[in-house]
């Protein structure tokens, strides 16, 4: 499973990963642009463009790309996040050229038709209603990002604010496409069962003529130091109250981020973890509780959540949850707990690389965030080199009340 890389003259980087036993081939195209590349007024445009990438290009009509992929036994989709937009196709091995042809048409010659845009805007608005406006968890997530980041673009939601969804124009989309969809701002990953030499020829043939444009330098605001807790309390139609909180931490490409992976596992990796054991098992205050890490280019977010069991006291649950998180650095961490966390992370990596598509995602993420496509392998070594003292120091530095951002969702009428 040797990873090979080559670069076209226009700057497009291509990674090839052959995998034994893989029944198919996966193509992933990573665009280094997401909601971080937006500005107020056009929030959500990265995600809207992702939708329009399915609505026709020079050779293919609206949805035709998707229909052709399916009619050849494949599947496809795309997703947009704060930092990136990723398009992917999983295909039978004989369909690699077809996949590359379809992709190149939309990356080089997207149609961006006004009528299609107007209908798709409604579709995206419905997506927002479903994911955010009519979901207490979606709403809490949106609020949590808005609280944790007050200056940086991570402040706004990937799907965009409602008022921006209503007001985007086709010109906004065209400008965004022209600015960020360039070979030098994109990389391709092909993984699975395929002939490397043929793949190189086909990528050159399909993407070689894609013109490079200079990507403007983004002037992205830095977050000011947080000097006090930020809290939003929302009363809405819910049966189970919950708290969702976050602490701004270091970005993906940092040793501290790896330390937070360990902290996450000790606090909430499985039913024997500290939070689960205390809140769900012993005290039975929470139906579910835990923590996790969102890792981005510029910052990370260590988050925690607690969903109250029916009939239990919300404030007791919230206090216990924050005590666990913020008192973590003072608690005893045994060598066994540390080893357990490392074992879980190693097992997670095995799971993530069992499938062709997810293996390519791991490689893509490594490269996108660190510039090293095999960073995920090196992380194993970092886990081994860490010591408990470093872990505690990092927790003490970041996980404290004045750095806390909390969204509290309570039922209407709650006191």
């Amino acid at each position, binding site marked *: 499973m040797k990873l090979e890389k080559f670069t076209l003259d226009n700057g497009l980087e291509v990674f090839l990963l052959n995998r034994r036993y893989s029944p198919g081939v996966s193509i992933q195209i990573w665009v280094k642009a997401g909601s971080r590349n937006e500005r107020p007024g056009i929030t959500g445009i990265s995600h809207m463009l992702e939708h329009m990438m399915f609505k026709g290009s020079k050779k293919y009509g609206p949805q035709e790309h998707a229909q052709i992929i399916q009619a050849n036994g494949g599947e496809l989709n795309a997703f947009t996040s704060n930092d990136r937009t990723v398009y992917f196709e999983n295909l039978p091995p004989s369909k690699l050229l077809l996949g590359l042809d379809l992709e190149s048409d939309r990356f080089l010659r997207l149609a961006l038709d006004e009528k299609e845009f107007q209908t*798709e805007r409604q579709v995206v608005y419905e997506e927002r209603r479903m994911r955010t406006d009519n979901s*207490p968890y979606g709403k809490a997530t949106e609020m949590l990002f808005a609280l944790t980041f007050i200056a940086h673009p991570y402040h706004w939601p990937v799907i965009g604010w409602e008022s921006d969804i209503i007001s985007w124009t086709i010109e906004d989309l065209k400008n965004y496409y022209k600015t960020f969809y360039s070979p030098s701002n994109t990389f391709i990953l092909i993984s699975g069962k395929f002939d490397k030499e043929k793949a190189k020829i086909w990528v050159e043939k399909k993407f070689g003529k894609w013109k490079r444009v200079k990507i403007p330098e983004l002037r992205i605001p830095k977050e000011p130091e947080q000097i006090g807790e930020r809290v939003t309390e929302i009363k809405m139609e819910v049966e189970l109250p919950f708290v969702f909180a976050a602490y701004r931490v270091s970005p993906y490409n940092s040793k501290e981020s790896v330390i937070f992976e360990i902290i996450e596992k000790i606090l909430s990796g499985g039913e024997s973890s500290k939070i689960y054991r205390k809140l769900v098992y012993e005290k039975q205050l929470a139906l579910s509780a835990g923590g996790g890490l969102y890792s981005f280019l510029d910052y990370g977010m260590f988050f925690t959540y607690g969903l109250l069991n029916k009939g239990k006291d919300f404030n007791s649950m919230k206090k216990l949850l924050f005590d666990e998180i913020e008192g973590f650095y003072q608690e005893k961490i045994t060598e066994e707990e540390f080893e357990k966390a490392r074992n879980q992370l190693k*097992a997670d990596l095995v799971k993530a690389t069992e499938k062709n598509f997810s293996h390519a995602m791991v490689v893509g993420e490594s490269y996108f965030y660190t510039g090293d496509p095999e960073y995920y392998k090196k992380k194993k070594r970092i886990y081994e080199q860490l010591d408990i003292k470093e872990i505690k120091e990092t927790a003490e530095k970041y996980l404290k009340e004045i750095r806390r951002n909390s969204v509290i969702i309570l039922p209407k009428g709650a006191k």
Partner: protein
Amino acid sequence: MKETEFGKIGFFNENGVRGAVIRRSDSESINISLMIKRGSDLNPENKGGAVDLFASMLSKGTKSFSAMDIAEKLDYLGADFTYKIDKDSVIFNFWFLKEHFQKIFPLVEEIFLYPQFPEDELEREKLKTLSSLYQIVDSPSALASYIFTKNIYSDHPYGNLATPFSINSITAEDIKKIYENSFTKDLIYLVISGNISDKARKQIISLFKALPHSSETKKIEKAEYRGNKFIFFDKKDSTQSQIRLGFGGISRRTENYEAINLMNFILGGGGFSSRLLLKVRTEAGYTYSISSSFESFNDGGSFVISSFSKNETTAETIKLSEKVLREFKKNGATEKELKDAKAYFIGNLILSMETPSDIAGKLMYAERYGLGEDFLFNSEKRYKRVSLEEVNKFSKELLNKKDRLLVIVGNLNSMKKKIDKLKDYGKLLVIENLFDSEK
């Protein structure tokens, strides 16, 4: 064992213990899956949720280990023990790294053979289940599906869902009885997959050789849906409605089921290639997602169109979906649609067998519905031979149901002017509290 492009696959029947092995030398992990070939019908009458509690309780205390001992041992190795319940089966699964087999094996033995179902652990699980039921109300999509399932199967065991009332009435004795009735040689099916040695395989199988045979036979009742029902769950804050529109369906044991899969793919199962998505999302912009599915089980099933739309276009979404359904029933699929749908299923077969656990899932599915051990290997042939006439015959028969169930979860007030447009679905039943009507 048969050498295939997915690894070595073999079936066994040793001392009455049946199952399959998928061996792949490159795999870094092992899965041990145990399927019980009964699901909802194991729930005692009016005790919906008992099977769920049984499944969750299996690892919550055994002869030698407490619930927390088990959690600690699994977590330490980065291993998982999970379960999945559906209408016709309960599937338990261990996943772990291959080098941990000897450490996991005692847990497999204890959990499957010596569960104790302690009272205090049961109370914990009951509280979690109760809270989870209330959590359904906070998710419009889960809520709509819950109401649909409850009503489409009503008195059939498939409709015997958990409620706060049923959960409160379940005892440790109920759970023990389910265990005794289901852990029998006739009902379990074992699939061991991944990088597993022959010695380890034998060690696992031998665990079950002393299990008894079933003393109770399953009563077969056909699930049927009759009448028109229009249920509206009023969520006053909603700006969007969840829609479930459907009718009675068919058993998975129906001959030539591949024709039904192909038909549904063209109608609404095929994402961007489906007619429903094309008309309701791409052309009208009413929704982000719409799909249709036949949920087919041993004793019957249902057909459902699932979607959501803002309150102002909910009625239009339903009307347009009905129009697509009508046209499809009347004119059927085209040759091109069938050709593309077949190419999708045939091409996708290989992609859906990537890992040993993917294959394990398919083998358990085949066993559950009596599809035969060669199900994996003859799928392509079965899809290839489906004709357009067969697809269109099914569409005429299966979509021609007058008895409809319509469930909407949304804001009634904002839809009042348009409710009249939906009067064909019968008298409107408005619910504001999911568990109000239970005894």
